[in-house]
């Protein structure tokens, strides 16, 4: 903690300090408004009727609160020719995210455990190669992946999207667990081996019980990435298997009928709710994943 502003307060410049504090809080408050404004506008717009939106002010509170737009967004808004709202696509995103998060986290844990605790010749090179995979712009794999999914026969399906998310999530999940397990002394593994415990036994009864924090970080990171993904979703899905981000974009950019801004906003909030919820409930772990994922890899 660098407490600079309070430390030199002497009688003479006391008032100056107080004014400075006020300016400081004012600036912080204005920044907070900047970050909150879009969310505020989204929420209020989603609660207005279209008439009120056309005649009223962008930042005005709704005069008559109505949840019609929410109902339409959830189960009636049109994505192209279909008009089922975001509900089926929200469900798709859940069906994609849960297995993809579970599989990539499990594989990442095993991989990290190997790379950190069972070093063999070449393990470091393998880890580096996997790490580089995190950084490629995914555009460079889109074309061959589209063909491969077609050859395997899972193009445009939910299992196809799960597969893609697992493959390209592996680098990060391995990195997270590797960095976590590296700090656990290798004597622990050695002692367990002397006692006759095998590879899986040691993982199961020593490492896994210690792993709760990093599992939480990894699950949150993967869930946020996969839920918010758009590139894979739009490239590898077809009508009916699209994730919620793709459906949202289709609703907003659908050109048929009257532009219903309140429905757009309600749909956007619905699409954002799961990750916002995770952020509010487990913000600490969310930030840890962000910094670990970006600073170190």
């Amino acid at each position, binding site marked *: *903690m*660098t*407490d*600079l*502003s309070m430390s*030199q307060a002497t009688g003479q410049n006391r008032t100056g300090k107080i004014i400075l504090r006020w300016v*400081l809080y004012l600036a*912080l408050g204005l*920044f*907070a408004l900047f*970050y909150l*404004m*879009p969310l505020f506008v*989204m929420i209020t*717009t989603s609660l207005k009727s279209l008439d009120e939106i*056309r005649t009223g*002010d*962008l930042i005005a509170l709704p005069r008559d609160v109505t949840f019609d737009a929410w109902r339409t967004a959830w189960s009636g808004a049109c994505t192209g020719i279909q008009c089922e709202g975001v509900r089926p696509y929200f469900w798709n995103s859940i069906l994609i995210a849960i297995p993809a998060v579970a599989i990539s986290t499990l594989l990442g844990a095993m991989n990290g455990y*190997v*790379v950190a605790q069972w070093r*063999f010749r070449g393990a470091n090179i*393998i880890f580096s190669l996997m*790490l580089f995979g995190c*950084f490629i*712009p995914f*555009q*460079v*794999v*889109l*074309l*061959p992946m589209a*063909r491969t999914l077609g050859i395997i026969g899972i193009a445009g399906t939910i299992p196809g999207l799960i597969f893609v998310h697992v*493959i390209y999530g*592996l680098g990060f999940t*391995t990195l997270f667990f590797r960095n976590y397990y590296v700090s656990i002394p290798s004597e622990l593994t050695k002692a367990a081996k002397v006692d006759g415990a095998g*590879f899986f036994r040691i993982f199961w009864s020593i490492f896994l019980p210690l792993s709760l924090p990093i599992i939480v970080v990894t699950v949150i990171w993967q869930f946020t990435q996969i839920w*918010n993904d*758009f*590139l894979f979703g*739009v*490239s590898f899905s077809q009508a009916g298997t699209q994730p919620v981000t793709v459906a*949202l974009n289709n609703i*907003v950019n659908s050109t048929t009928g009257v532009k219903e801004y309140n429905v*757009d906003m309600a749909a*956007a*909030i619905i*699409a*954002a709710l799961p*990750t*916002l919820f*995770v*952020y*509010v409930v487990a*913000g600490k772990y*969310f*930030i840890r994943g*962000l*910094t670990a994922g*970006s*600073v170190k890899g």
Partner: protein
Amino acid sequence: MTKWLEENTPKLVLAPSFIAVLIFVYGFIAWTAWVSFTRSRLLPRYDIEGFIQYERLFASPRWDTALNNLFVFGFLFIVIAMVLGLVLAILLDQNIRTEGALRTIYLYPMALSMIVTGTAWKWILNPGLGIQAMVRGWGFEDFTFDWLVNPDMAIYTIVIAAIWQSSGFVMALFLAGLRSVDGEIIKAAQVDGIPTWRIYTAIIIPSMAPIFLSAFIVLSHLAIKSFDLVIALTGGGPGYATDLPATYMYAMAFSRGDIGQAASSAMIMMMVVFAIVVPYLYSELRTKDD
């Protein structure tokens, strides 16, 4: 047999993931690289024809726009997000009582999908009913803020939305950095009567050089990969005024049916990323092994 199995379990566990990465990352990059040297159009062809796709790419005005946009967008986004993030971190570092709540507010956009961010800003910035209409409604009839539909200015709306989304994250990085500076040195400087701003510019900020580098890497990476935000906010338009390499690649691959152009533009994107990331990763991995 069991002995062999026992000894090689770690390798066997790692093998599937490693093979998957070899095929789906490196093999696929090789495929894309190969195809970028062919005459592929709607279908891939595999006879090497040299740099023809790259020549077409750099002769294309649309790619020219996309690359220019990347530099304008990338530069403004990185510089402004870094400055804003640093300012926020320093302000928050002054023993603010509501720090936790403010941090949460500054950072929450990072949890949102770029599609959500784009949708929100598209609504706020639309001239018909958004900020422009609002300010005109207050009586300023001549007020104009039509960047979203103005081909010369539309790229800056993407800068605004991207900064809104990512600057809180830069703040979090810098705040962690400020907190890790040695308190003793700062106290000593205070005892010597060095003014606060000098302590920041001469001691604290220089000691955070690695964090500036990390933030730069992350932000430039985000900038090059920007795709969803453009799609949701402007759709690459008006015309193709806000195309970026990522949207160009996507358009070629999936709506124009021009695989050769898609592959060569993807390769250029990868080279830009690697030019920035590889030296950084290399130095990171080396220092960790020591």
